[in-house]
C-alpha cells in the first residue's frame, strides 16, 4: 500500500489531476459559501455581461453573465455539486449491478453465462445515448431518474470485467479447494472471488465517474436532463447555445469546467491504474 502511495506521489500526471479536482471538490462541498451570487438571481440589465477580463466586463461577475443576467461563476460552482453527485451515484449503482451480473455469469457458467452474454451483446449493439434518450423522454426529468438511466446503461463494463476475472478465478487452486471443502457459493464469492477482482473494478469505476459526468452533460445539453431549476453544467451550456453567434462565454465556460473535471478524474484514475498494475513496475 505504501509503495502504491509513493508511486502516486511521484506521478506528475496523477498530481495534476488532483490539482484540477481539488477546487471542484471545494466548490461542490461549499457552494453556498463560495458562490458570489445566487445562481438563480436574474439581473436583466446585466444580461450577457462578458467575463471581467474582457472589454465591457464587470468585476462583480468574474466569468460574466448568461442570457438572463445570472452569474455564470455561481452557476458553475453550484453545478459542480450536481455533477459530482451524479458521477458518484451512477458509478456506485452501475458498479453494483454490473459486478453482480458479471460474477454470476463467470461463477456459474453454462446457460446462465450464455444468456447474460447475449444481454451484454444486445446492450453493446445499442447506442447507449439512444437508450438514455428514450428512457429520459418517458420518465419525468429529475435527478434520480437521470441517475437511474445512466446506471441502467453503464453496468456493462463492470459486468464484462467481473465475468472474465471470475471465470479465471474459478479454476485457481484456492477456489477449487474451497469448493472441495463444500463451502457455499455465496461464501466462495464473498471470501475468495470479490476480494480478488475488486481492484480492477475500482479502476473501472474511477474512469467511469468521468464518463457519467460527460453523459449527464450530453443529456442535459439535448434538453433531457434534470429539472431546469438545478443549474447543471450541461444545462447552463445548452442555455447559452442561443447566444453562440455573439457571446462565446455562456457555452464555453461551463464546458471548460466539464472538461477539466473529467480530465482530472481520468488523470487520477489512470495514475491509480498505473500504480497498482504489477506490469508497470520497473
Amino acid at each position, binding site marked *: 500500500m505504501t509503495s502504491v502511495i509513493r508511486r502516486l506521489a511521484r506521478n506528475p500526471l496523477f498530481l495534476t489531476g488532483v490539482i484540477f479536482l481539488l477546487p471542484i471538490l471545494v466548490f461542490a462541498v461549499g457552494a453556498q459559501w463560495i458562490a458570489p451570487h445566487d445562481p438563480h438571481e436574474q439581473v436583466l440589465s446585466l444580461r450577457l455581461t462578458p467575463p471581467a477580463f474582457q472589454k465591457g466586463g464587470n468585476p462583480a461577475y468574474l466569468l460574466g453573465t448568461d442570457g438572463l443576467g445570472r452569474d455564470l461563476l455561481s452557476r458553475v460552482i453550484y453545478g459542480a455539486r450536481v455533477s459530482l453527485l451524479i458521477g458518484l451515484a451512477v458509478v456506485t449503482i452501475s458498479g453494483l449491478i454490473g459486478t453482480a451480473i458479471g460474477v454470476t455469469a463467470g461463477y456459474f457458467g453454462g446457460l446462465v453465462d450464455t444468456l447474460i452474454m447475449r444481454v451484454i451483446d444486445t446492450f453493446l*449493439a445499442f447506442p*447507449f445515448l439512444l437508450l438514455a434518450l*428514450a428512457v429520459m423522454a418517458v420518465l419525468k426529468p429529475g435527478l434520480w431518474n437521470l441517475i437511474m438511466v445512466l446506471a441502467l446503461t453503464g453496468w456493462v463494463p463492470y459486468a464484462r470485467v467481473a465475468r472474465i476475472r471470475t471465470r479465471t478465478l474459478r479454476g485457481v487452486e484456492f477456489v477449487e479447494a474451497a469448493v472441495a471443502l463444500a463451502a457455499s457459493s455465496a461464501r466462495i464469492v464473498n471470501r475468495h472471488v470479490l476480494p480478488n477482482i475488486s481492484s480492477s473494478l475500482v479502476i473501472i469505476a474511477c474512469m467511469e465517474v468521468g464518463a457519467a459526468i460527460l453523459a449527464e452533460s450530453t443529456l442535459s445539453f439535448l434538453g433531457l436532463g434534470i429539472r431546469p431549476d438545478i443549474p447543471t453544467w450541461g444545462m447552463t451550456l445548452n442555455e447559452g447555445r442561443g447566444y453562440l453567434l455573439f457571446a462565446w462565454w455562456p457555452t464555453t465556460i461551463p464546458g471548460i469546467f466539464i472538461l477539466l473535471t473529467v480530465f482530472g*478524474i481520468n488523470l487520477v484514475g489512470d495514475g491509480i491504474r498505473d500504480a497498482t498494475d504489477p506490469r508497470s513496475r520497473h
Partner: protein
Amino acid sequence: MIPYVARRLLMVIPTLVGVMLIVFFLTFTIGNPAVLLVPAEAEPADIARVEAALGLDQPIPVQFAKYLGRIVRLDFGTSFYSDGPAMQLVLSRLPATLQLSLAAAIIAVMIGVPAGLFGALWRGRAADMFLSASVLFGMSIPNFWLGLVLIIFFGVQLKLLPISGMGTIKHLVLPSITLATGMLASIARLIRNDLLDVLGADFIRTAQAKGVGRAAVFVRHALKNSLSPVITLVGLQLGALLGGAIVTESVFAWPGVGRFILQSIERRDYPVVQAATFVLAVIFILTNLVIDVICARLDPRIVYD
C-alpha cells in the same frame, strides 16, 4: 472458416431480437403519438380514430406480434409524420451518417495509430507523458461542446468554415473532427498499452537475442501482433461513433440518421425510431462480425472450432 462465419451469423439473431424487444417497449413508453398528431382542440373520439388507424388501440401483445412479423419482412411501417415508409426515410439519411462516421474514423486512425506508436517507443520519457496526457484530455472533451467551440472559433470568429449543413468537403471538416476526438484518443491509448505488452513478451526477447535489429523487431514482431486488438477496438468504437453522431449531427445540423432519430423521438414517430435503431444495430453487429473474421484470419492463435 465457413462454419465459423455461419455460427457467428446465427449468434447475431438473438442479439437483434433483444435490440428490437428493447426498442419496441421503449417506443411504447415514450407517449401516445395519436395525441400529438391531432390538433389541440380535437375530441377524444378523434384521438381514438387516429389510434385505430395506426393500430394503436390493439392489446400490446398483439401489436408486438405484428411488429415482429413486419420486421422479418423489413417493413417498419409508415412514418407518422411524413407519410413515407419509415425504412426508406432512414436509409435516405444513412449515406450522410456513413460519410461523417467514415471521415471521423479515418482521422482517428491516421492520427491515433502513430500517436500510440510513438508513446510506446518513447515509453516513460517526457514525450510519452505528454502523449498520455493528451490522450486522457481527448477522452475528457464533451463532444457537443467541442463542436460548439469549433463553431465559435472557425465559423464565427475566423469565418473560415461553414458551421452547419452538408455539401462541400469544407462542411465535413468541423463535424468529423468533433466526432473523431474520442475515438482517436481511445485508439492511441490502446496501441500504446498493447505494444508495451507485446514488447515485453518472450518472443520479442528471442528475436532481440537472435540479433534482429530494433526497427525490424518493432515492425515485424511487435506491430504485427498488436494489429488485431486495434481492429477489434475500431469495431467496438463504431458503436460510440454512431451514438456520437446523434449529438454531432444535431450540433452541426448534419442531415443524417442521428439527427433524424432525435427529431423522431421528439415527434413520437415510432416507426422511424424503430427503423433507425434497427439499421444502426445491424451496422454495428455486422461490422463487428466482419472484424472478428478478419482478426481470426490475421491471428493463427484464434481457432474457429
